């Protein structure tokens, strides 16, 4: 059955999608910048990099992101998931402002406002396109009841 509005658990999955990618990228960036320059003549040093704490954490977060993303796409439209999860960009910008004390220009504040309004707008609508039931799906439902 189609979930027209996400359940609280599904909102949590969308939150994991939104946070997983930017936080994972941040961890990878932090890990890679703390390493000495990696040369293509020594590719094995990339393997060693995987086992450093920041890069390991980044990989775990990105695996979590992809699993959550696939789960979200199994019950919501692509055109719902992508704008709804763009809020992660805002989180990272606010994280940079209040934790790393970076300066945020007026363009970035404008971007934060636009993304927040866009996300709020799309999440108020239906998450999945309703489709008329096909003969095949009717048969599947009947088989499911028979089991």
């Amino acid at each position, binding site marked *: 059955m189609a979930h027209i509005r996400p359940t609280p658990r599904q909102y949590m999955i969308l939150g994991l999608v939104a946070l997983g990618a930017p936080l994972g990228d941040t961890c990878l960036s932090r890990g890679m910048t703390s390493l000495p320059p990696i040369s293509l003549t020594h590719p094995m040093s990339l393997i060693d990099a995987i086992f450093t704490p920041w890069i390991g954490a980044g990989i775990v977060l990105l695996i979590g992101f992809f699993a959550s993303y696939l789960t979200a796409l199994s019950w919501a439209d692509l055109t719902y998931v992508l704008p709804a999860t763009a809020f992660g960009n805002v989180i990272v910008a606010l994280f940079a402002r209040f934790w790393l004390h970076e300066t945020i220009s007026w363009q970035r504040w404008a971007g934060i406002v*636009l993304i927040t309004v866009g996300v709020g707008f799309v999440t108020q609508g239906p998450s999945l396109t*309703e489709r008329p039931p096909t003969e095949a799906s009717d048969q599947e439902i009947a088989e499911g009841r028979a089991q």
Partner: protein
Amino acid sequence: MTPAHTGAWAAAGMIAAVVVTSTAGEVLTAAAMKSVGDLDEIRARSGMKGAIRAVVTSPLLFAGVFFLALSFFSLLFALNHLSLSLAAPASASLTLITNAIAGKIFLHENVDRRRWISAGLVCVGVYFLAH
């Protein structure tokens, strides 16, 4: 904006390559997950192993991941020739719009006015945020 040795058409081509491969990857992945069905329900019925099996046996998913990998390498190539402040926001924000168009055409999603407006707002917002 673009380094002196990279022309405007070459820059547009590199960004277009990122956008097209990324859109193809997202649409194929979404189509794969739609054909698999609600993962929460599959997990409740067949457990985590059943959910993983349902996902990894979908050929469309591998096609999607292939295009997403292609998009990643296209972005790396673009970043090698263009400035980050141009390539990253342009490709990220344009991909939102092309995904809305592709979602309507190929996935037959109901992209109503609400979704168009939010895709537009997020697109401009990402551009401002990353610029």
